[in-house]
């Protein structure tokens, strides 16, 4: 479960554009992870079992973890390390999950801040379990996972045996709003803090840039295709 800046955040950078400026930023549970959590709750409510929310991050993300517990996860684990990149996060979760006997590991298809979309796949590989990416539907019956993925022009149904990992796409389910009982229960649910394992972050962030500001709209007469070609070629340099 990732914690990401709220979608209305105005993104700025500090330290000569090498760090994201966190000042005044509100953090939320990554929306795709919220779908994973909700689906995990639906599956366990129907079939039994329990849900553990796992997060790699520092103590300041505990408010979001507490929300996951309020929504319904039975327990939570925070691996106490700054999430450096996808490989690092996957490695930390894999080290914790190894031997815990999880049947199904659900992630979001990507976090909405860095949009890497890599953690689920790397994690599944590290654990040596099947991985179904970007699912819009997922069910578990008699130890078999059946998931649907949207593909170009159609849908793909994928089956895999448990244990298995999958990542949530939009439309997997409707995210839940916690209720008062959930918030009260979350106070006493276990939130375990685990120290990180030795690791090798594969990459570092060298520099951030904002996308170029939107320019003015230029209208070109439909009869003047030549001018359009010339602008695209000489000014925009896209053809």
């Amino acid at each position, binding site marked *: 479960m990732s914690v990401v800046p709220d979608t*209305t955040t105005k993104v700025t950078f500090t330290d000569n554009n090498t760090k994201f400026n966190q000042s*005044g930023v509100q953090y939320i549970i990554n929306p795709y992870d919220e779908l994973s959590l909700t689906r995990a709750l639906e599956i366990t409510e129907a079939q039994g079992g329990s849900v553990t929310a796992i997060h790699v991050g520092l103590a300041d993300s*505990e*408010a979001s973890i*507490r*929300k996951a517990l*309020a929504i319904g996860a039975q327990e939570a684990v925070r691996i106490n390390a700054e999430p450096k990149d996808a490989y690092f996060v996957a490695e930390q979760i894999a080290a914790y999950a190894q031997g815990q006997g999880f049947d199904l590991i659900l992630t979001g298809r990507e976090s909405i801040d860095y949009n890497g979309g890599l953690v689920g796949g790397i994690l599944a590989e590290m654990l040596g379990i099947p991985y179904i990416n970007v699912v819009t539907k997922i069910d578990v019956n008699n130890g078999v996972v059946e998931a649907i993925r949207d593909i170009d022009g159609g849908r793909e149904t994928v089956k895999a045996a448990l244990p298995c990992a999958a990542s949530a796409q939009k439309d997997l389910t409707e995210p839940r*709003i*916690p*209720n*008062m*009982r959930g*918030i*009260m229960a979350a*106070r006493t649910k276990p939130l375990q803090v685990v120290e990180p394992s030795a690791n090798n972050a594969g990459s570092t962030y060298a520099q951030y840039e904002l996308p170029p500001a939107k320019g003015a709209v230029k209208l070109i007469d439909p009869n003047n295709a030549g001018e359009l070609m010339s602008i695209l070629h000489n000014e925009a340099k896209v053809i």
Partner: protein
Amino acid sequence: MPYFPNPEEQLHRSAKQDLFQGTDFYAIDDLLTEEHILIRNTVRDWVKRDVSPIIEDACQRNIFPRHIIKGMADVGAFGPQLPAEYGCGGLDYISYGLIMQEIERGDSGMRSTASVQGSLVMYPIYKFGSEEQRNKYLPKLASGEYMGCFGLTEPDHGSNPAGMVTNFKDMGDHYLLNGAKMWISNAPFADVAVVWAKDENGIVRGLIVERGMEGFSTPETHNKWSLRASATGELVFDNVKVPKENLLPNVQGLKGPLTCLNSARYGISWGVIGAAMDCYESAVRYSKEREQFGRPIGGFQLQQKKLAEMLTEITKAQLLCWRLGVLMNEGKATPAQISLAKRNNVDMALNIAREARQIHGGMGITGEYSMMRHMANLESVITYEGTHDIHLLILGMEITGENAFA
């Protein structure tokens, strides 16, 4: 007979996205706990999902959206400040205030429903009721299975409740209740009413009256221009036999209802900040989008003056409420302090609704935007639970020691 059959099917769901973010210019969130913020954001998300899409249609058509009672109960809107052992939230007064703020951000009528249930029905049963009464009513009121209303105001006695004529006689094995109450939120569908009436010695006492008791009726008040998504009615008692165990044993005199009103007024002080923020944020967005004379109207000084003053007033009101919440938690808040906050904040919200409406120009007149609805609602809010003027006199008496009421 249900008060309104199948409301969910009949209400139009607006597709317009609710862009509310919450205004926090002074980083007041830093004064809140993690749990306060979780509660606030939970209710905010619920309002966006379940209230915002239907509220305009409900108000326009004067329908109480009864189907959202369950959601209100789930997010803890009914008696959140009362103990968990009675099925309530067991939360502090700042949590209670934040819940009221977020619900009123959606609509003052919805907040009124929650205020009445939590502060005017559940609170007196908790504070003045017997253990049997608490156990009988509180869990059902907290879950929304029962809805309640509060009968104090009478047709001829509003600001002067001491003049009430509703009364009851001890008939040996029961009380016989006669009289009428007016302007009662939730009355048309309430299952229980906490009614204040005089005994044979002229002492004000509280009685729990249940729907179905013979001689008890709740005619609806029609043609309101305000709080149109909330149901208002009268309580009429025509020789109603009330069981003796329904008397609230632990309070006598006007102190009873006035204590309840303090709790509700505290919630209103927070609630109206929600309405004000909704209007302000809408005005900010509109002022950036709407262009006249070749530029966004937000670039003109007169619009900036309005927006700057709105933000100033909202920030002051937020700090006022936060401090009052701390005093409430410590059990130190005085009625006069609550009067100051209720009076200041409702007036603030009403002014902001009007100014925000101006910024929206003609568009502000339509139901496309929320200001006119908030403005009309707030005309009730500035009148009920102690009028704007009465709160001024409470403060005046506090300052001078002189009673200027009569």
